[in-house]
């Protein structure tokens, strides 16, 4: 099978869905004329024209608000928020409008809006351009959260998101756009929400990891394998809905769990996953649940500082060894 980058996978997914349904439009800062800050939307303006591919002013609140409003009258907007830290500039629209509008109106309407955004820890972006804010959205009822780690998953899940009648926030990663390359079929396919993918099988320790941390967990697994520790890497791929069954099934097999994410450890997705496992598989655990996350500080600029506060491959290796006692 041919191999393409994560960025190309997103581009293809969006392009194919726009060709498939004339109600799909896309908007955001710098997405049209230059094809996106990260080049993800390149060529769309030329192919679909300025009515369907719209550059917007720097107005995150309006980008989300307008997208939601248009979705209420039959359009299916795919909006881009350039960095996930900028979700802070439109959190009102996301939490009080996007997440609530269908529910508080008693289900009268559907709101098929997709918000694409980009995590970016690890690029010396400092505190305001190194987001990993998925927990904000996971904590907001009424929005589905997709967070793929590979080009294959990215394309299939983006297509599902665009075809879905529910609002979706779709987290990409700046370091994966060109850093992750993988096999992607040329024919149409979709991946359902709420179905985890076991990225590596193993019997000793389960690592639940998503997005960038899947790649770090797989690297750690190689190192651990040399020492005789077989790691199972479970990638939930979507956080809402969360495939608790696959995670719990894996823990029942390995009896040990590490959760790896780039978020600040406190009150994050990692804690939610841990709780769901405690609820359903507490008796199967042979060791306390462990997590490998970033430190609870804003992201620092200088490379040694950022490297220190980030979750690393070595951290996973060390924690896994500790759990194996």
């Amino acid at each position, binding site marked *: 099978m041919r191999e393409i980058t994560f960025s190309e996978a997103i581009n293809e997914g969006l392009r194919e869905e726009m060709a498939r349904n004339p109600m799909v439009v896309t908007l955001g800062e710098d997405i049209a004329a230059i094809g996106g800050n990260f080049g993800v939307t390149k060529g769309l303006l030329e192919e679909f024209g300025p009515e369907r591919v719209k550059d917007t002013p720097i107005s995150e609140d309006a980008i989300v*608000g307008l997208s939601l*409003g*248009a979705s209420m009258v039959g359009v299916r907007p795919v909006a881009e928020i350039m960095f996930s830290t900028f979700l802070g500039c439109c959190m*009102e629209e996301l939490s009080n*409008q996007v997440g609530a509008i269908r529910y*508080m109106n008693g*289900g*009268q309407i559907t709101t098929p809006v997709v918000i694409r955004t980009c995590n970016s820890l690890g690029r010396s972006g400092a505190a305001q351009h190194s987001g990993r804010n998925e927990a904000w959205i996971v904590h907001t009822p009424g929005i589905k959260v997709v967070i793929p780690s590979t080009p294959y998953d990215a394309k299939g899940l983006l297509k599902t998101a665009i075809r879905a009648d*529910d609002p979706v926030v779709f987290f990409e990663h700046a370091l994966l756009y060109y850093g992750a390359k993988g096999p992607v079929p040329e024919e149409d396919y979709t991946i359902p929400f709420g179905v985890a993918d076991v990225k590596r099988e193993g019997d000793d320790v389960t690592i639940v990891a998503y997005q960038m941390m899947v790649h770090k967990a797989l690297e750690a697994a190689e190192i651990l394998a040399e020492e005789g520790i077989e790691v199972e890497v479970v990638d939930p791929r979507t956080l809402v809905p969360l495939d608790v069954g696959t995670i719990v099934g894996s823990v029942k097999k390995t009896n040990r769990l590490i959760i790896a994410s780039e978020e600040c450890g406190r009150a994050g997705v990692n804690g939610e996953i841990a709780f769901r496992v405690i609820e359903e598989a507490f008796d199967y655990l042979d060791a306390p649940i462990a997590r490998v996350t970033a430190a609870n500080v804003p992201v620092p600029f200088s490379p040694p500082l950022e490297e220190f506060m980030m979750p690393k491959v070595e951290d996973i290796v060390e924690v896994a060894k500790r759990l194996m006692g």
Partner: protein
Amino acid sequence: MTLSKEKHAELYEAMLRIRRFEETAIDVFSQGKIPGFIHSYIGEEAIAVGVCGALEPTDYITGTHRGHGHCLAKGMRMDRMFAELYGKATGYNKGKGGSMHISDFGCGLLGCNGIVAGGIGLATGAAWGSQYKKDGRVVACFFGDGASNRGSFHEAINMGSIWSLPILYVVEANSWAISLSTSAAINLTHLSERAKSYGIPGADIDGYDVLAVHEAAESAVARARRGEGPTLLVCYAPRIRGHEEGDPQTYRPKGDIKKAKKNDPLPRYRSFLLDNEILDQARLKDIEEGVEAEVKAALKFADESPYPAPEEALDDLFVEGVS
């Protein structure tokens, strides 16, 4: 402007429906029958009615936390509205919205929004949707002068302007944002001057005068339908009642409320209709009796309706999947 006798009757009836709905809501709220809180539209009837009277039934509007008037002016039923205020299963939102969120998307009301300025982006997005689909619809977006200080207002009206969207931004300038006066919040006497920042027309209108509002709205709707873009209509109607029911309004200067009451748009329009022999006493009485009957039946409907089953709290979140 010459309106037909029937149009006048329609506008008067629409204003009266709002007034009597609100008076009744306040009454039953004080009896403890309505949970939550009530922001009354009393005194602002001419704005929603004047604007909605210039729209087609297929056009869209968005309302606010003070939104009962927007609902009624767009043609929503009193019975399902009262049922929603009561939290009953037969309410428009099946009891999930309440006073601040009553909506009927079927009649073109794209949500009343409890977040101040929360509806402006949505309304602008609906206008963008109409422009994209070329369906010829126009959107009227209602919000207060207080909302015009939020960034959401600026971002949305700016986008509406650069994209020439078919939308009316209707400011219900009621002089008070809870306890802060407009003059303490905005460094302008004529709020319509804000339109200049966006390169669109703006107008200052007596918001107690339904005919003035209607005339301005008709011209803004025509402009929007021609594809020429948005208009900012600032309708001044100082608040007659408190921010919400139970607000003692101790912050208002002496005589301020009395002055507002003197300009009450309902008696003013009624006198205008009689003095100019547009409608006679018998016709007005007919309308008034009709509205009374509607209010009475609506309350009965709400009273007799069942509450939703508690577990319905988990319904209506997603189209696919539960939570």
